[in-house]
């Protein structure tokens, strides 16, 4: 038998780059990722059993009071529900139980993406190597989350703190994304060494 609680980690075989003075890449696991679609005015009702209001602005994150579930609002009618511990079917069942006739879509995409966490003092510069968005703390504060690009890969970028970002990337693009981050960290390290040597 295959243990359904132990799926293969999509970045397990990758050598994750890191430099303490610049940025470190680590695997970040979510057990459940549910794509939820619903009309904006119906979302509050769907979020209720999870303790989520789902009324935040597009491209922001909401974390439930218990901290167990988060919702990234990726569009006017689109939320990505995340849980590090709860399995996707249990999460979906909780929503479905109270949804009644509210039209919505819940699709399990737990395995679609690989999660990475990038942390360190130069995270903005590392990401700016391939992400065209303004990533300064004012333009992209903690709690902001959006789909964007990192070089040629579509990523989901979520700022957790000033020096910490979560990156969700399609499973098959994880090696490429890690490669781009490795290159960017290498570049920042080399330029920092050049500047300090001058």
């Amino acid at each position: 038998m295959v243990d359904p609680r132990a799926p293969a980690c999509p970045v397990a075989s990758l050598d994750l780059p890191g430099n303490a003075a610049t940025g470190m890449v680590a695997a970040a696991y979510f057990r459940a990722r549910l794509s939820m679609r619903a009309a904006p005015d119906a979302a509050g009702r769907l979020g209720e059993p999870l303790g989520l209001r789902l009324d935040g602005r597009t491209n922001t994150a909401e974390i439930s009071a218990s901290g167990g579930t988060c919702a990234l609002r990726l569009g006017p009618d689109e939320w990505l529900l995340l849980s590090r511990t709860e399995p996707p079917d249990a999460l979906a069942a909780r929503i479905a139980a109270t949804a009644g006739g509210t039209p919505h879509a819940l699709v399990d995409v737990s395995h679609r993406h690989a999660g990475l966490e990038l942390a360190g003092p130069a995270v903005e510069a590392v990401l700016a190597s391939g992400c065209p968005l303004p990533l300064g703390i004012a333009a992209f504060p903690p709690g902001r989350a959006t789909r964007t690009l990192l070089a040629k890969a579509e990523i989901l970028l979520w700022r957790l703190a000033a020096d910490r970002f979560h990156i969700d990337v399609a499973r098959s693009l994880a090696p490429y994304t890690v490669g781009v981050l490795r290159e960017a960290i290498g570049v920042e390290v080399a330029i920092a060494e050049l500047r300090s040597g001058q």
Partner: protein
Amino acid sequence: MSRPPVETSAERFRTINGGRIDRTRRLSFTFDGKPLTGHPGDTLASALLASGVHLVGRSFKYHRPRGILSAGSEEPNALVTVRRGWRRATPNLRATEVELYDGLVAESQNRWPSLAFDLASVNDRLAPLLSAGFYYKTFMGPRWGRLGANGAWTRLYEPLIRRMAGLGRAPLDSDPDRYATRYDHCDALIVGAGPAGLMAALAAAEAGLSVIVADEQAEPGGSLLAETTSAVHGRPAWTWLADTVAQLARMPRVRLLPRTTAFGCYPDHLIGLAERLGDHLAEVPKGLPRERLWQVRAREVVLATGAIERPLVFPGNDRPGIMLAGAVETYLERFGVMAGTRAVVVTACDSAYPIAANLAEHGIEVARIVELRQAAGEAARATAEAARLAIVAGAEVVGTRGRHRVRAAEIAAPGDRRERIDCDLVAMAGGFTPTLHLFSQLRGQLAWDEAAGTLLPAAAVPHVHVAGAAAGRSGLTDVLESGARAGEAAARSLASGGASQSAATPTRLSPRSATSAPSPARRRPAPPAGRAFVDFQNDVTASDLALATREGFQAIEHVKRYTTTGMATDQGKTSNVNALGLVGGLLGRGIDAVGHTTFRPPYTPVTFGTLAGEARGQLLDPIRVTGIDPSSRARGAVFEDVGQWQRARYFPRPGEDMHAAVARECRTVRGTVGVLDASTLGKIEVVGPGAAEFLDRLYVTALASLPVGRCRYAVMLSEAGFVMDDGIVARLADDRFHITTTTGGAARVLAHMEDYRQTEFTDLVCWLTSTTEQWGVIAVQGPKARDVLEPLIEGVNIAAGALPHMGVAEGRILGVPMRLFRVSFTGELGYEVNVASGYARDIWDELLARSEALGGCPYGTEAMHVLRAEKGFIIVGQESDGTVTPGDLGLPVGKAKADFVGKRSLARPDMVVSDRPQLVGLEVAEGGGVLEEGAQVTQHATPRPGTPALGHVTSAYWSEALRQPIALALVKGGRARIGETLHVPMPDGARVVRVVSPVFYDPLGDRIDG
């Protein structure tokens, strides 16, 4: 540094003191193998001049000896190759921009056997034969057999010309360096860190803006770097410069980027910057990127890009030692280098007079000031008189002497008094051309300004502020003031969203023309006799321009292309305005009526490495692999690229070639069972009360009636009625569908569906979610497929008759949730197991082990292709090419369906004619072998040239099941031709083929139930 001391006297033309070079350190370098020295702060050009080296290159076409014209990035002549180790060679670098470092190795270009003795300089003697347009006139015919009229050109002339004419040679090895990219954003991007740029930066930063200042030089300062006498705000210029740079460096929202060229402006204020990080270092730290591309989105742009001095157009104006007057002063003041000992200053502009006086003060004898105008300005004359300099006004230069260095200038004074003046330096001052390349790229219009004698901004552009010499300002005070105003204007514009723009930049700038020459057109109605060069880099002379106008070229863009003026790597920075003036004069119309050519990016050449950034090797493009990939690699699978995906093509066993492996895999699937990694199939989950109706409208296939638990093969058309994609649509619940797309079409299909969902079918409530990567897919195909699966799954009954062909069910496999599709792309009993990607490899390993225990094997995409072709199943993109209808492919189009995307187009007259290309099978006559895919299908074995083909082969394989080659083809009116004999011409002779049904194997479909 432990190098043997070098005689100071080596740098014979170095001043005793002064300049911004570090005289405490000496750097060694070589030029064409000759050891020379210089100092930190030198450019290659200043170091060469310090040692008296003026001959540094050969010209592009005539191989004329050339020297150093300028002191900046506009340099047309002094192009060199710099080598670093055995792999790194960078050709065509401007010696005026190459920073000197210890151990630098530079070489001249476009000469053989040596710079001083260049055999190809015979071209110079042949100049009368090599006038403008000579390529077009000379290199025609003769016809060379099958190559036709172009044969002689491609085989003989072009290779010869490429060897004769030219620039440095590009290295053949792959580039060993690293390149980086960077996106950035700022309130104000300031291009140029000269006096205007620095003032603008200060003003903008003090107003609270985030500022990036990009400057192409090694240190900020621009023209101030050669400014030793003036004071700025009560301080010596260099003190003010150091203070200001330090002040800016302390400001947290200001970033100063030296060695960074703003090379192009793109829509919405996206500015491309090329930053040079490593090329100036003697030892480049490992891992340091050589260059970095910045893509900066700037809300306000301040262009403080300065101005470029124009040469003068007189016969023999291109000899080494003939330089721009401003450059001569820059070498003196910034680098402590005397570009000569006895100078003739040729000028049409007052700016030359203080320079001449300064040269004389520093011990460079000024033999004569040749004033092309009737008289200089009052102040200029006074300056010359104070320095006791001899002026000859209303004169012109009629020739120069000297082979590798100018030896004399020949002048004609009023009254045709000819005089020859010995000299080793000629300083030219032809006025200044504001650098407005970026302004033009930002959609700014330029207009000729007669008073300023140059092109200037004609109207303001929102959020763009031009300052300093770029705006036609001259005089340090005015330039500083203009910079500060531009910075303030940027802040105001930002605050008001651009509303204050018109106040900030007057629609018509009123430049002070104190240093500008009058219009070149006014000055010289006819081009000078003799070879007077306009474009030094492309060797275009004034008489070439005259020839072009005589031959009827009037539009400046045509003159440019015919003569190639302004088309060299320097993009005509020093030549364009002179060319405009000459053409205006020749055509008898004002220079303003001539217009100007387009300022295309890049401003200076940008390396391919910079543009590529990290996108090389493994990061060239994402390489996508499935979760099952490690298992397939461990088994030695051979992979093929399918878009960004890598898919296992076949699994060779020891001793097998591709043919043998594929044949065995086909036999195994038909005879026993095979497993295929089909994870790359695109998948979309469609959910919502309107999902069924939505899909029904999108696909040709009727889907509203699809029962839960069933799937259908479905075809999607573009609006034009052509097949766009196909796949399986499975209904999991009333309001939930799982659909598959082709591997390559996944993103396109999702976008197409989203487009219709959001814009056309807004009455339907449903949502689309890409699930391509959520599911790993394993196809189990073959008579024993059921035997493989049955013991491993729970919750689904797959006993014979329980889950029919095109059924779908959810259950578990080995404890893991599964969606099980009973579908077949092989014609055999088949299933596709979908499990969440994280389990795919484990499940694959188990299914494979069980298959092998039953005599099965893994199979790859090649066997999949053969098996589907034997059944006549199409592959979108192979049997279809965007011009193929479902009818052409023999796919049913339900007449009953009221509408679907593309239906209306299917009724167009051209879509219903009987001789459209139709999908058929081809059987190859005995001994013909496998046809070539893409080969044409013809009536006759050797059709007469010009006969249209009947169609083409879309797929061709060896069919192991039929033991013969098979092919699918699109043939005109093909279905009516079944039974006919046609031909397929191939390089080694035509094959005879028989048109048959595209279904070669098991035409009744009996095998689908095992």
